[in-house]
Structures are given as C-alpha cells and as structure tokens.
C-alpha cells in the first residue's frame, strides 16, 4: 500500500515535470533582432544647365540640341525613381563661371561646398559641342557627400541621335549606381489612329519621342506585341482575302532587324491578341475559326497549330500572355459568365481562376519577374488598372482619374516596364486616349504622349542596352 502511494506520487511528479521546453530565446549574445525593410528615400540630384563647349559660330544650333539633351536626360532621371531633382534657383554656384570638374583637379573648377550646402547628393556636370553633324557630350557625375566622381564618360554621336545619347547616359548612370540595367533605351509599340477609320502600328521611345510608323496596311492594325528579345513584333490587321472577297483579321510578324513581314495565320475569323513565348519560337493568340474564340499556339512560320483552350457553349477565351519564366499563361475568359482573369499551364491544363471581384476583367499583363499580373477591370462605369500577385492575392488599384466633364476616366491596356517598376497604359482622361505611365504601386503618374491621336493597346519593349 505504501509502496503504491509512493509510486503514485513519484509518477505524478514526473508526469508534471516532463513536457518542458523552456527555450532560451536569447541565444549566446543577448537579444537578436533582424531588420529587413528600410524606408527608401530618393536622393537629391542637381543638374545644372549643360554647358556648350564648342566654337561660338556653331552656338546657335548648339543651344537647341543642348536643350533637348537636357530635357530628355532630366525626364529620365525623374522617372528613374531614385532622385528628387533640385530646382535650379536653389543653386549657389553659377555653372557658367566654373569648369565641369572640381577645383581640386582643375583651376577654375566648381566647389563641392557650394553643392554640399544646398543639400545636393548627386551633381551632374555636362558639356557638349557640335561640329557639323557630329555631337560630342562630356559627362561627369559626382557623389557630393564624399566628393567622389562616380561616372565620367564621353559620348560621340550624330546630331540626330541626341535623344539616344541622353537615354544612353541615363542608362549608364543608373547601371553604375544601382547595378541594374536602366530602361531608358526601351521602346513602346502601339496601335494609333491615323486617317479616319484607319489605325497603324507605331514604335516610339519609352518617353514618347521619335515615333515611327511600321505598318501601312491602310486598314485597322491592332494588338501589337514584342518578342522577348525585342527584335520582332507581331500584330493583327484587317487584310483583304481575294478568294473569299472579304476582309479578315490576320496575324502578321515584322522583323525590326530585317524589315521582313510575314503573314502567320489567316484563318477565317479572328487571328488576334497575340503574344510571344519567352523561347521566341511560338506565338500565343486567339483564333475563332472553329466557332467561338479560343487560345492557340502557333510557330513563327505559321505551322504547328496547337489548341490550348476548348470552349463550349459560346464561352470566349482571349488575350493570352505567357509569363516570362515560361511556366504559365494568363488569359481572360467568360466561362464563369463575365470576363475574368485565369491562369493555366503552358500546355493548357490546370486552369485556375484568379479574379472574383468586378464585372469585366481583361487584358492581363505579367511583370518581368513573373510575380505579378496587371489587368483592366470595369468598376461600374469605367475601367481602371489593377495589379495583383500571380496567385490572385493582394490586389491594388493603380489608377483613378477624372475627365474634364467630371466623369471617371477609363484606364486600360496595362503593360509593365522591363524593370517591373512602371506600368504603361492608355487613358481617356483628357478626352482622347493618350499614353501614360504609373509606378507599379500607383504613387506616381506621368503622361507620355501629347497629341490629338487615339492610342490602343500599348506594349513596353524589353530593355535595350
């Protein structure tokens, strides 16, 4: 009996002591904390006016060129998102009286103190000269707190390429500072209204400069897209089929290197909404010759047609885009009643619905890292651009604008920049559909085109070096 009691007591005591893991959270040296997301702030950059260093008789021409060089570069720096540009009225030193380099290196040079005092962190000094048709630009970029030169580079080109020189300089500076490629030499391909009832395909600089028409079908050319290496575009245009005596929406490709134009798919009905695959060998598009629009894959030579969606009962599957990592295809489908955004594997299997809110979600676009998808969604009376994770979570609205008449403007056709930080889209907030860019978190918007044309379905190119 007593043994029994003793045993019981011992057992109970042991039981109550056992599940014990009082872990020492502290570790060997006190508390440990890891901080991983700082607040990012823009750095202050001073860009004093560029100095003309050529001969006085070429000065007149030179001033115009210098202004364009300055404006294009300044715009690039603002959009880079790294810098806040100082207002020139804050400058103490008059750059006309000092050299491009610091006084410690050349006599008559500028003083770092004059820039440190006003709080500049980066100082860009540029001198340029024009000789006949050739343009030479000397650039020196300094990090003022350490009085250090971070980029000193000279660019030689022709007077016609002044914008390219400015963009190249901007790219080089961003690369030097951040290690990432800049996006300033990238381009936009877009469908634009030309004559009444006519639209053609244009290619322009990312900032709207140098627009160049690349089609002349004299009909409606639409839905252009870039190949992943930027060497080719695909688009659709109404072409006349002689045999059938009718016009049809056909798919074309155009090589920017060779100028060669190829008719890839001309099946009856729609051959449109094209996008390239990352391996550059095929194109995804919507074809409707079997009844209702479905998504197909076709090789660049027009052969090897593979059907990826099989709609029934009038369901439409349109606007396919492949993720840059080649794994998934996002598209818009009416299989749930209203157009919604879906993803599927590259072979058409494993279809998953991504959006459940809204009434009409279309034109999906992947971010370059394949992690996010942007799309246009109808919110009662107007379209806005939304961005969500590739699994449909964490949706945010990017745009919200009013038209002059007080109604909400439409913002449509999103396309990511090559570094994933901006989204290009079109908006009718001024009355006509013009091109705009917004930062991918919706903080910052900027108008790109300033004309009276109407723009449709812009796509941002890969980054060109």
């Amino acid at each position, binding site marked *: 009996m007593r043994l029994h009691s003793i045993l019981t007591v011992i057992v109970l005591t042991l039981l109550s002591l056992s599940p014990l893991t009082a872990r020492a959270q502290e570790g060997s040296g006190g*508390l440990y904390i890891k*901080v991983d997301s700082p*607040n990012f702030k823009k750095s202050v950059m001073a860009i004093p006016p560029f100095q003309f260093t050529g001969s006085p008789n070429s000065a007149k021409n030179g001033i115009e060129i210098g202004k364009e060089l300055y404006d294009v570069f300044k715009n690039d720096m603002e959009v880079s998102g790294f810098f806040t540009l100082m207002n020139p009225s804050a400058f*103490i030193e008059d750059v006309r009286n000092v050299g491009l380099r610091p006084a410690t290196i050349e006599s008559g040079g500028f*003083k770092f103190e004059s820039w440190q005092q006003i*709080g500049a962190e980066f100082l860009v000094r540029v001198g340029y000269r024009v000789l006949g048709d050739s343009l030479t630009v000397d650039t020196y970029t300094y990090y003022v707190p350490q009085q250090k030169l971070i980029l000193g580079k000279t660019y030689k080109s022709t007077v016609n390429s002044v914008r390219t020189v400015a963009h190249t300089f901007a790219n080089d500076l961003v690369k030097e500072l*951040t290690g990432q490629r800049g996006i300033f030499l990238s381009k936009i391909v877009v469908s634009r209204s030309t004559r009444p009832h006519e639209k053609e395909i244009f290619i322009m600089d990312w900032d709207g400069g140098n627009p160049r028409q690349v089609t002349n079908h004299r009909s409606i050319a639409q839905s252009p897209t870039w190949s992943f290496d930027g060497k080719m575009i695909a688009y659709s245009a109404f072409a006349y089929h002689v045999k059938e005596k009718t016009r049809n929406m056909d798919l074309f490709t155009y090589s920017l290197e060779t100028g060669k134009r190829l008719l890839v798919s001309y099946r009856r009905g729609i051959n449109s909404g094209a996008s390239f695959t990352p391996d550059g060998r095929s194109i995804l598009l919507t074809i409707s010759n079997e009844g209702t629009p479905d998504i197909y894959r076709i090789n660049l030579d027009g052969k090897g047609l593979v059907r990826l969606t099989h709609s029934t009962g009038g369901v439409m599957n349109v606007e396919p885009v492949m993720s840059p990592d080649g794994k998934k295809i996002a598209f818009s489908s009416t299989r749930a009643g209203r157009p919604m955004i879906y993803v599927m594997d590259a072979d058409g299997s494993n279809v998953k619905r991504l959006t459940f809110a809204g009434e009409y979600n279309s034109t999906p676009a992947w971010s370059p890292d394949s992690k996010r998808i942007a799309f246009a969604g109808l*919110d009662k009376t107007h379209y806005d651009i939304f961005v969500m994770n590739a699994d449909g979570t964490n949706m*945010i609205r990017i745009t919200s604008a009013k038209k002059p008449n007080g109604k909400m403007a439409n913002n449509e056709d999103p396309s990511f920049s090559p570094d994933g930080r901006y989204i290009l889209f079109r908006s009718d907030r001024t009355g006509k559909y013009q091109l705009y860019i917004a930062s991918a978190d919706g903080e910052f918007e900027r108008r790109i085109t300033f004309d009276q044309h109407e723009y449709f379905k812009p796509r941002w190119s890969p980054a060109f070096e």
Partner: protein
Amino acid sequence: MTSANLNPQANPSHSPQTDERLSRYIGVSLALHFAFFVLLAVRAYVMPSEPRPLERAIRVDIVALPDKQVAQLPAPRPAEESVKAEGKTSPEPLKPTQPVAAAPPKLPQKTAARPAAKQDPTKINLNKTKKNQEAALKRLQAIEKLRNMQASDKPARQQTASTVVKGNEISQGNSLTGLTKIEHENYTESVHDEIKRHWNLPQWMANANMSATVRIFIDANGGLIKKEMIRSSKNPVFDQSVMAAIDASVPLPRPPSHLENLIAVRGIEIEFTPSGN
C-alpha cells in the same frame, strides 16, 4: 451487496475498520489530488511551457474591387512666411562660413569678394544688394520646397504600409498576455518596429546586396548606453544609415524586467539586411 450478516467482522464493507480505511484512503486520495494541482500550479509559474501560437482572426470580403490608395501630402508648413521675414532682415544667411576655415590662405580672398558682402562704403549698390537678397530668398524657398517634398516622400515607400482595402478589413483578434514568452516576443517585435521605422536608405541602394550588424546596450528606460558596429557592410553610406537609424529610434521601448539584466550585459544585436523588395 448487502447480505444481512450478524457477524460484523465477516462483512468488510460495514466494519468500522473498513470505514476507517475508506475514509483514510479518501483522505490520501484528496491529498494527492490537491498536491498534484499545487504541483501543476507551481510548475506553470516557475517553468512556463511553450504557449500555443495565437493568431488574429482575419475576415476578408472578396467581392469588391479595392480603392486606389492616395498618399496624403502634409499641409505646407508656414515656413514660407518665416523665410520671407528672414530674407528681409539678414541678407546673407547662406554666406559660407565653415569651409573658409579649412581652406588654404589663398582662398579667403575669393570668398570674401562675394558681391553682397562688399565692405566698400562709398560704392553701395542698392540694386545689386536687392537682387542678391531676392536670389538668396529664392534659394531658401527652393530648399524649403525640396525639404517639404522629401518629408512628404517619407510615407511613400514603406513596404508594409497598412493598406485598408474596400471590402477587405482585418479585424483585431484576441491576443492573450501574461505568458512570459509572448511578452518577450512582443518586446523584440516592438524594438524591431521602432528601428525599422527610422531606418532610411537611398532608393538607389534598394537592391544592393549588403548587410551590417550593430550591437547596442540600453538601460532600463530604453536610453542608449552604447552602440558598436560588429560587422560593417564595407559601404560608408550603408553603415551611416544604420547608425542614424539607431540614433533616431532612441529612446527604445523599456525592456520587460526579466530581460533588463540580459540586455544591459549582453546587449541587443541588430542585423540590418535590406531584402529584395
């Protein structure tokens, strides 16, 4: 089980001995139960076990499209008026003073020859002075504007800004307090949040692959006793940003009493590593 039995010894369930034993055993049993409960209570107090993770309840409505977030700009400070007043009374607030001391003897003449400070009494050019005053005023205004822009830039890039999205609202769940481990974790979290709030890095360093570790010692009120860099990032801009973050977050939240000693002796090790955003 009662079979009437005249012999009390023969029936164990009714003997006084049995009753006594029964009551004794009941007593022992009660005592053991009580001891067991006391033991458990003491154990819970002295050696806390791992608390179950308690998570907040999240309720999400997924039927509405979210609204657009608009960053609020701070109201323009009345710095404009003070700048105007300054401009009128002291014409050269921007006159360089410090750099002159460090410069070689030749230079002071150059800087002293700045037009507005000309000491020549016979040739005071009123127009020129006025122009310089206006230029100085403009500079001050431009700098103020820049500072305002930078200040309003602050909330723009917080990675974990609490976005309230239409239809998606996170409701505060319940969180139990009282368990030491949770208190401990709350403390490290609050220190972490405080320092993160004050850590600023230039945007162009966002993808720089660097990290620095600092050890700090704080007193019972959260004031800073010492900070030392134990692993530098080798980049002066980055190192300077983490030191500034610590300086700006002091005084830190007061440590819970059971951690005071540990923190005072071993300190808090803080690793700064901007992860890819």
